[in-house]
């Protein structure tokens, strides 16, 4: 989805340069929510303000919304068909493989040292095995990250002051 958006906005419509697109992508990745939808909202806002972002967001969601509705309705009629059951079993197994690849790719980008590694595993264990609400984990990690950044900023300011003396 993201390569399609990039292609359409940078090469076809020439709304943004390649560099602007990199910035937009980085921001949309860091916000909560689906990246493709965030990009639609962001680009819509940049082009035509709040109304533009609303139209772009609805536009990017609507086709899949309708398709899923059609599938969900259709599937309830053929849910007992042996071929459908087999196909779903095959799809389930393949979907697991797809998520394994996602964990690997995202984990490789995020886990840079022992600390991020331990934090990732701790978050997983807390959510998956101790039923800790994801909200608490995200909040805790957010506070930890902000505190860490605050301490670093203070240290740099202090360090600069000492150098001057």
């Amino acid at each position, binding site marked *: 989805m993201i390569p399609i958006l990039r292609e359409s906005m940078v090469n076809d419509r020439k709304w943004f340069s390649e560099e602007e697109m990199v910035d937009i992508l980085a921001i949309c990745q860091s916000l909560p929510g689906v*990246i493709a939808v965030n990009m639609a909202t962001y680009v819509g806002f940049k082009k035509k303000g709040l109304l533009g972002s609303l139209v772009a967001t609805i536009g990017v969601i609507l086709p899949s919304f309708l398709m899923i509705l059609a599938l*969900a309705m259709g*599937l309830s009629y053929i849910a007992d068909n*042996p071929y459908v*059951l087999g196909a779903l079993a095959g799809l389930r197994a*393949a979907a*697991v493989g797809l998520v394994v690849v996602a964990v690997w790719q995202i984990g490789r980008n995020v886990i840079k040292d022992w600390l991020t590694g331990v934090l990732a595993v701790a978050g*997983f264990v807390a*959510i998956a095995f101790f039923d800790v609400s*994801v909200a608490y984990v995200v909040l805790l990690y957010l506070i930890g990250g902000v505190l860490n950044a605050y301490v670093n900023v203070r240290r740099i300011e202090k360090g600069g002051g000492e150098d001057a003396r």
Partner: protein
Amino acid sequence: MLVKLILVFSKIGFLGFGGGMAIVALIFDSIQEFGTISQTQFADIVAIAQVTPGPVAINTATFVGFKSAGLAGAAAATFGVALPAFILTAITARMMKQFSESPLVKGGLAGIRPATVGMIATALVTLAKPAIFAEQHLGAGLVEALQGLPVDPVSIVICVVTIVLIGKYKKNPFVVLIFMGCIGAVIGVY
């Protein structure tokens, strides 16, 4: 029910740092609150969401909403999951500079990243259980002995082959999933 769907999915949308699969994990986490969807049903929904064009998280939200409360439920869940990101992204688009250059914002977002890995790994466990410990094993109709095993070996093979094809050989995930679905239909579960 509809108000509840909007609230639950808004919470999911607000916490959904890290994109699609992280949100899928959150959706399963929250399903228990209105629990009519089993783990196997959820695995089916996610599998279908992945082969339907469009973001997997939106597709999953729409499907879960539909299963919970029909057409209006699908609309409520989709609206709810998209709303927080819409508000936050629109605000950010207005003041991009201050946002993206603040060291505290950067630090906070960097802090969340390991949690995202944990969330996606949780989604993996949720989806793997019903696939590997399925009630009806793939190919059990052809080779009866398969049904007697504690795990579903054909599903495990499909999963591993999918990992190799997508992870190592960079094949198109959509094509691989459809192919595996066809194999499943041919082999069958009975």
